[in-house]
């Protein structure tokens, strides 16, 4: 059914505290392979784990067992910006691209035996675009594929501030999918609230926003969120100015994320799952 969804592989650089067994390094004692230390049989009464060598060596003749850390599941969330600007896009709207990426995340998380949850927000957190974390991804996949045909209204993205209330207390892996067309200070405030989680910013930009502008002509543009109207006289140096403005913005976004020690993942055009795998290899310590 979901054959067309391409998966990527991901890992986390911190220890999960989840009790549910999964595939991430964890602080949870259990049936894992990672040796953690010895303790007495009295405090960890599991005779299968008796370490005979350690027991013989002890002059006080206590019986020792080995304890291990299990591999745990860690919640994975896709948080999608559904503000007006996400309606933009030449070949596919950014919302459609979001739907693709969120589905890929959902599939990857499920196959990694991690619970997946989805949160959509515009000016508020959209309760109708909300899916609580679950190990069974059907509901989330249904939601993310419905997202493909969604057309956002003329709304902003202030709901990012409230997203934290819908996230678990335990540290989770969060894919924040947005074009980040929002004021820098608002973004910084929202990000600092999310810092207890591992945030992967997925920045969706469309090349027709700045690189593939029409060569020459007069046009009137309407802002997707504020409805502000401007007349543009597109010409060579105007286009150069726009591209320069976007490049400056890219540098600004990168600088902000690097302040929180996270690297942004830019998606321009189509989503390449392998690039996301590469991102994890490059920026997240195994």
């Amino acid at each position, binding site marked *: 059914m979901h054959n067309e969804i391409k998966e990527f592989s991901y890992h986390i650089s911190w220890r999960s505290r989840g009790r549910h067994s999964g595939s991430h390094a964890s602080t949870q004692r259990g049936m894992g392979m990672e040796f953690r230390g010895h303790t007495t049989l009295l405090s960890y009464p599991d005779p299968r784990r008796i370490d005979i060598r350690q027991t013989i060596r002890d002059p006080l003749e206590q019986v020792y067992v080995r304890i291990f850390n299990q591999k745990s599941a860690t919640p994975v969330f896709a948080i999608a910006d559904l503000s007006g*600007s996400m*309606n933009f896009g030449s070949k596919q709207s950014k919302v459609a691209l979001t739907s693709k990426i969120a589905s890929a995340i959902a599939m990857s998380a499920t196959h990694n035996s991690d619970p997946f949850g989805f949160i959509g927000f515009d000016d508020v957190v959209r309760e109708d675009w909300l899916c609580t974390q679950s190990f069974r991804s059907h509901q989330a996949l249904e939601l993310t594929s419905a997202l493909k045909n969604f057309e956002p209204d003329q709304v902003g993205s202030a709901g990012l501030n409230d997203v934290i209330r819908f996230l678990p207390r335990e540290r989770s892996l969060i894919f924040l999918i947005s074009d980040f067309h929002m004021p820098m200070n608002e973004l910084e405030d929202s990000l600092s609230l999310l810092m207890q989680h591992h945030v992967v910013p997925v920045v969706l930009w469309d090349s027709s926003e700045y690189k593939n502008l029409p060569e020459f*002509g007069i046009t009137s*543009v*309407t802002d997707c969120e504020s409805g502000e109207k*401007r007349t543009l006289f597109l010409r060579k140096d105007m286009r150069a*100015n*726009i591209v320069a403005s976007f490049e400056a*913005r890219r540098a600004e976004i990168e600088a902000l994320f690097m302040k929180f020690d996270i690297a942004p993942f830019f998606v321009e055009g189509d989503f390449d799952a392998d690039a996301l795998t590469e991102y994890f290899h490059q920026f997240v310590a195994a």
Partner: protein
Amino acid sequence: MNIPIFFDSPWALWLLPLAFLPLVLDRAFTQRYSWVAMLPKDRLSDLIGILLKVLAVLALLFIVLGLASPHSQQQSIERIGVGAQIALVLDRSASMDDPFSGGDTNGKVAETKSVAASRLITQFVKSRQNDMFGMITFSNSAMYVLPLTENREAILAAVQATAGNALFQTNIGSGITSGAGLFDKVPDSGSRAMILLSDGGGRIDADTQQKIRDWLDRLHIGLYWIVLRQPGGLSIFDTSYVPPEDAVLPPQIELNEFFKTLTSPFHAYEADDPKSLAAAIADINQKEKKPIRYHEQIPGYDFSQACFLLAALMIGLLLGVKYLEVRTWD
């Protein structure tokens, strides 16, 4: 220059608020853009944006103004000229078509009196650019030809039109009263003259004499009488002429005597060839050179054409922009 503007159909001005619709309504055809704030400020683009709105407003404005058909009011401007208000009272009797009395001495047929008169008067009229002329012709009764006017073409045409078939009578009294009537209800410029051109005289009854006396006096009209002498006719200046016993004076002498009793200025000339006629007219030309005031009528100007032209220009510019408009975003 402050010309008051009047409108033929002022109700159309109620549509004026419609002209400002482009400021209220947004352009129908706009592209969606993700974040306009990201676009760098561009003064030229902003200018064009404002310009487009202004063009649209102006186009509508001029169309509505054009519909109201504005025009300036007919104006009369007071001008000061050198010249006079001159009534030409011309004799059209058949005798005018005879040659001059003094002109046939060299054996050739000379110019007829009427042709010479109209030629010389045409010259006279042409030489006096600022005068107002009116015209009356008379034979058995007066014919009203032209009121006092500044229109050169009309005067010249009227002078040309005096040639033609005519009758054998000379009703000089009717000609003078009609000529004086031209000045009635016309503002007095300060210099008024009546040039009476006739051959011979005519008798005027006492009532008409009194009327002529009153009118010429009241309307301050100076009278110049040019007599074209008949071949072998009497000269009005011939003081030695003694009429036969029991006979009345010849009409021209009687008329001259009457004119001399007028309280208004009077001058008589006698001409028996084109040269002396020209001299007489030149003399009148000299005498009537006082500055005069008169009002010139300037017709109102219709601005609706200009309004529609301007509106068409604006729409043309807008169409030009439409041609430059980006239709496909990518």
